[in-house]
């Protein structure tokens, strides 16, 4: 009996806009000028807040946070491609997408300054957006479950979830892909491969040639895109969403990008990578090429860029002022949210805590 090949696979890579802003006209998505400008604005807005937060953190005005600079494209493009009824199930490097979906800047600041209130979003925004997920990869399963619920209820909507390259080593990543595939649930899995999990480079994370191909094992259609090319991200995510809406199940998208900053502000990347390595990727970052693309289309120029930056910086200034002017939230609030209804044994501790606080403030 000769040995037979049972299956062969291929993994597609998609780039629409190269690092110099050169466009593949054939692949260009059909987006209105207004949408292109919104997409660019969304990415720049995240960059401005991110860079401001770095300064605030260094000045001790907020706590530790994980910067998103250089990774604006995948989540912002996803937010543009998504409908209001789709669920946005992020990890913690999707600032662009979160802001685009309507998260107020002040929420981000409250969150990173140690207040749960940052997770409490305006109703219409929080309705279908989950809070940041700190334990790596756990949110991937939530998206699969949300996808199941959407399908059961017959909604034409999908769950879009994000994770990093490190998360693809977690069991929850594999279980999430597997459950969603078995259920043919409407889920778009986006792995932002930023090539670093704190100090662990991509090649120590997995021997797989691509992260995209991990979908193949689960029967999940997959594609690798240039994650610094917002157009490629948009095209792949839109296709995946359409597939999900048609009832054809999940998709895995690997968005190859780069973590230009530290893992979090508590991390020092000079310990494990060189500035030269980083410089290579600064040349490929997502904003410059998109700006070139908009300019080539006659939609952008230096004056517009200057005006946009100024406007966004002012917006961030205002948000920081509002954030810092907000009086501290009540310290005992966690007692109100252990359960929907409190229990006598918890209420007893609550009163004890309030009495201790009063005593300490009187002292």
């Amino acid at each position, binding site marked *: 009996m000769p040995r037979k090949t049972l299956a062969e696979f291929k993994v597609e890579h998609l780039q629409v806009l190269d690092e110099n802003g050169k466009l593949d006209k054939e692949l260009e998505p059909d987006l209105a000028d207004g949408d292109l400008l919104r997409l660019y604005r969304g990415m720049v807005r995240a960059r401005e807040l991110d860079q401001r937060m770095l300064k605030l953190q260094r000045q001790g005005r907020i706590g530790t946070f994980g910067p998103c600079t250089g990774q604006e494209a995948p989540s912002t493009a996803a937010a543009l491609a998504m409908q209001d009824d789709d669920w946005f199930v992020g990890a913690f490097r999707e600032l662009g997408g979160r802001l685009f979906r309507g998260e107020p800047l002040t929420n981000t600041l409250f969150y990173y300054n140690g207040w749960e209130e940052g*997770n409490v979003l305006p109703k219409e925004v929080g309705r279908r957006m989950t809070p940041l997920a700190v334990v790596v990869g*756990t949110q991937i399963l939530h998206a699969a*479950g949300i996808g*199941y*619920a959407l399908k059961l209820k017959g909604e034409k909507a999908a769950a879009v979830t994000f994770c990093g390259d490190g998360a693809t080593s977690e069991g929850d990543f594999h*279980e999430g892909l597997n459950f969603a595939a078995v259920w043919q649930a409407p889920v778009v899995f986006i792995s932002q491969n930023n090539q670093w999990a704190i100090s662990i480079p991509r090649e120590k994370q997995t021997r797989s040639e691509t992260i995209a191909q991990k979908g193949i094992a689960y029967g999940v259609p997959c594609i690798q895109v240039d994650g610094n090319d917002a157009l490629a991200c948009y095209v792949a995510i839109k296709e995946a969403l359409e597939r999900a809406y048609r009832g054809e199940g999940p998709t895995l998208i690997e968005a190859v990008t780069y973590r230009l900053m530290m893992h979090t502000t508590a991390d020092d990347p000079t310990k494990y990578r060189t500035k030269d390595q980083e410089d290579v990727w600064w040349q490929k970052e997502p904003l410059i090429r998109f700006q070139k693309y908009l300019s080539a289309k006659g939609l952008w120029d230096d004056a517009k860029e200057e005006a946009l930056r100024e406007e966004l910086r002012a917006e961030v200034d205002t948000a920081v002022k509002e954030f810092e002017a907000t009086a501290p939230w009540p310290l005992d609030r966690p007692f109100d949210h*252990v359960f929907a209804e409190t229990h006598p044994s*918890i209420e007893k501790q609550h009163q004890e805590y309030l009495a201790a606080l009063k005593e300490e403030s009187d002292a």
Partner: protein
Amino acid sequence: MPKLTMVQAINLALKEEMARDDRVLVMGEDVGVDGGVFRVTDGLHEEFGESRSIDTPLAESGILGTAIGMAMAGLRPVAEMQFSGFSYLMIGQWEGNATRMRSRTQGQHTCPLVVRMPYGGGVRALEHHSESREATYAHFPGGKVVIPSGPRNARALMLAAIRDPDPVVFMEPKHSYRSFREDVPETEEVLPLGQAHVEREGDDLTVVAWGAMMRPTIKAVDAVAKTGVSIELIDLLTISPLDSDTICRSVQKTGRCVIVQEAPRSFGVASEIIARINDEVLLYLEAPVKRLTGYDVVTPYFGREKSYIPPAARIENGLRETLDF
């Protein structure tokens, strides 16, 4: 009133709640076509279809993680861990998300879900099928831990657990699954979570037990009561949040207390109860509070389980010791 086993009573509760509320579904390994390895979900597949009695892939974190997503998106999943000994693979999702989502978002997102798991020894099972780890789950704020002791309260507590707006670990004493039957009312009966039940009222001694330990404890209590002693027996029903008021009120009256626990002695529910008694009613005590428990050894294989789990005779001796102190 039909006489049901605990398996049948929980099955009844699931059926009632799935019929009443189409957001409710069951999910887990072998819960669908097979009806569950203990038959707790028997017949649900035929009645409610595969989309509401889901045969999932074999992955405990996956089962709870997707149940969390379903709950956040408006469903009321009842997920099964086939045995509590396999449930540790879901603890990351339990601690990291199910129990925290309400507090994390101050109520904007919640996880109304139930995780059912058969627990405990006494059925001559393989390794990892006999532990009693309720203290593990009780240690995570934001989640409730419920343990029925008989068919009737199992049905009433399951209805409450499914309707509860917060995540509940529902631990089913598999030793009691089929070992006795009880009348279960045909009309709906719901017991509130977070409240213990006084099974016998008495003045001389308080005895606290839960789950599978209730049967041997009742036997011991009744034997001692025959000698003219008045014993109050409390069935916890909810482990967390713990109803300390019922316990402390009783100890204030009796001055003596024995706690019977299947789990290893240290860092357990019995220890917590003693701490609460110390906090509230220490000066009413006339004897040290006694713990009758499993031992701090790895749960032995079933060849040794008969003596490892406190038997009625040992409980009876313990009660007498505390009464005679």
